[in-house]
């Protein structure tokens, strides 16, 4: 279908992607991680750094890597010396925002071949724990004095969702089981567990009820990269460019105590923006495979509904019926998601974009979904229950 409501100069395609390992601690410096991912993406596209004219970098709070001006710091490892470079950041949504920003560069005609890199090294923030960096995120005046842990917010959202939709923990745990098993087909995966069962999730350490340890994605180091090119260039580079059909992004208020947490309105709006551009009016039928953001298991369900892939409160039912498995009618997170592959904040979203890219090209190997894939979607979420970013890709 052709795009509606939008006039732009050049169609944009993804022509290469690269990933490092995702692990709790990696020895490489942040620049070296960016370089490893960027090199792999360039190699897949058959390009060298000289062929790249612009660079987009994404990285979440500088407080993780412990180096300020992190975009500039990463620029060298991301091939950004002596070129137009921009850093974008929307918290966890960054990973899908990076290709969106890269899309602007190409669609406007300003750049022909753009390298987009996302990197995170959470292990640097060692004491007391990388999670403590998230203390930053709270309102300093009305929230921080209560000494909150970030998990509180997720637990509150999860509990509200469970209450409104009548969902039990067993149903939500199915997502963690599916993703951690799916991850065994992913060479970069940090937490592949081929034998994990729902009981394992329900017996894991209770952190902030209802959130338990196996409901949460890990702290990780890692980097990801993609190469975007204009239509003319893409056809020269590869026989199978994957077109970016729609992009969308939306932010909601940081005053999360004033809104209903059971439904992610900002994801719905971002998705609407992307669907309108891609000419999609029935996402459940027209999207063949999706990678919604899953920092927690309930989040996959929450986002499926926000994306319109399931009706409100229907996502747990689809999961229970096996619809979201790799051989199901609507495979969700065939990569293994953040729960299985890992969660280096900014790089995680771009890992999902890379997954959709490889699924559409039929290169996902053991992870390849059963049904034929023409259109796929990657979505990320970020900040204080605020940001939604969506990319629709297809051939």
């Amino acid at each position, binding site marked *: 279908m052709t795009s509606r409501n939008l006039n732009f100069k050049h169609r944009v395609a993804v022509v290469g992607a690269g990933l490092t390992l995702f692990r709790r*601690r*990696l*020895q*490489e*410096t942040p*620049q*070296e991680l960016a*370089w490893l991912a*960027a*090199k792999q993406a*360039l190699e897949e596209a058959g390009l*060298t*750094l000289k062929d790249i004219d612009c660079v987009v970098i994404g990285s979440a709070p500088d*407080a993780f890597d*412990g180096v300020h001006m992190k975009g500039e710091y990463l620029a*060298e*490892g991301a*091939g950004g*010396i002596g070129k137009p470079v921009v850093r974008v950041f929307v918290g966890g949504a960054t990973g899908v925002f990076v290709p969106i920003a890269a899309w602007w560069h190409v669609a406007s005609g300003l750049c022909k071949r753009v390298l987009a890199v996302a990197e995170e090294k959470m*292990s*640097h*923030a*060692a*004491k*007391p724990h990388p999670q*403590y*960096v998230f*203390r*930053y995120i709270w309102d*300093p*005046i009305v929230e*921080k004095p209560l000494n909150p842990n970030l998990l509180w917010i997720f637990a509150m959202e999860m509990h509200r969702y469970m209450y409104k939709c009548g969902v039990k923990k067993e149903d939500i745990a199915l997502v963690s089981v599916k993703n951690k098993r799916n991850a065994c087909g992913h060479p970069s995966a940090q937490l592949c567990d081929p034998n994990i069962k729902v009981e394992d999730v329900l017996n894991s350490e209770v952190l902030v009820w209802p959130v338990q340890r196996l409901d949460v994605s890990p702290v990780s180091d890692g980097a990801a990269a993609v190469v975007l090119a204009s239509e003319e260039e893409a056809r020269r580079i590869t026989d199978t460019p994957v077109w970016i059909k729609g992009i969308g992004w939306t932010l909601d208020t940081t005053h999360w105590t004033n809104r209903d947490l059971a439904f992610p309105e900002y994801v719905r709006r971002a998705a609407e923006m992307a669907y309108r551009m891609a000419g999609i009016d029935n996402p459940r039928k027209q999207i063949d495979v999706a990678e919604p953001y899953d920092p927690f298991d309930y989040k996959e369900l929450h986002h499926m509904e926000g994306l319109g892939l399931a009706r409100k409160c229907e996502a747990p039912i689809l999961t229970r019926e096996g619809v979201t498995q790799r051989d199901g009618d609507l495979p969700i997170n065939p990569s293994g998601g953040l729960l299985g592959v890992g969660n280096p904040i900014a790089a995680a979203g771009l890992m999902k974009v890379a997954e959709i890219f490889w699924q559409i090209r039929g290169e996902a190997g053991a992870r390849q979904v059963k049904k034929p894939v023409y259109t796929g979607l990657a979505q990320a979420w970020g900040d204080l229950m605020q940001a939604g970013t969506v990319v629709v890709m297809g051939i």
Partner: protein
Amino acid sequence: MRRVKYFPEVMEIEAYVYTAGPVGTKWLEGLREGRLMAAYCPRCNKLFLPPKMYCPYCFGEVEELRPIEPVGVVESYTVIERDFNGELLKEKRVLAFIKFPGVEGGLVHFLKTDKPRIGMKVAPKWREKRQGLVTDIEYFVEA
């Protein structure tokens, strides 16, 4: 009603642990043994500092470190007179950017001298007890 104007807070993280990467770690081990090395890119046939696992010039992979003559030349320097809080230091310190012949880039380090000048030839003064940090060199002195 008198307003409440300020709210105090401190930074979150107490300590960072940075890693030097596989090539950087070997370089630091070299320093611990009293050896100064530079990274070598076989495609560009260039030596460069600080060391990395990729070549910033050609973007190719770098795995090799080569020992270099520990005699450098002061490319530029500055004299530090005050501390972070603006208080006068008891002793002025000289910070210099030191280039090594045949090596791209260089090192920033302290220089112990009363008369710093650009072009001065300098060599490292190694510490007795070394740990694998850039401060295993205590400072550079005129060679």
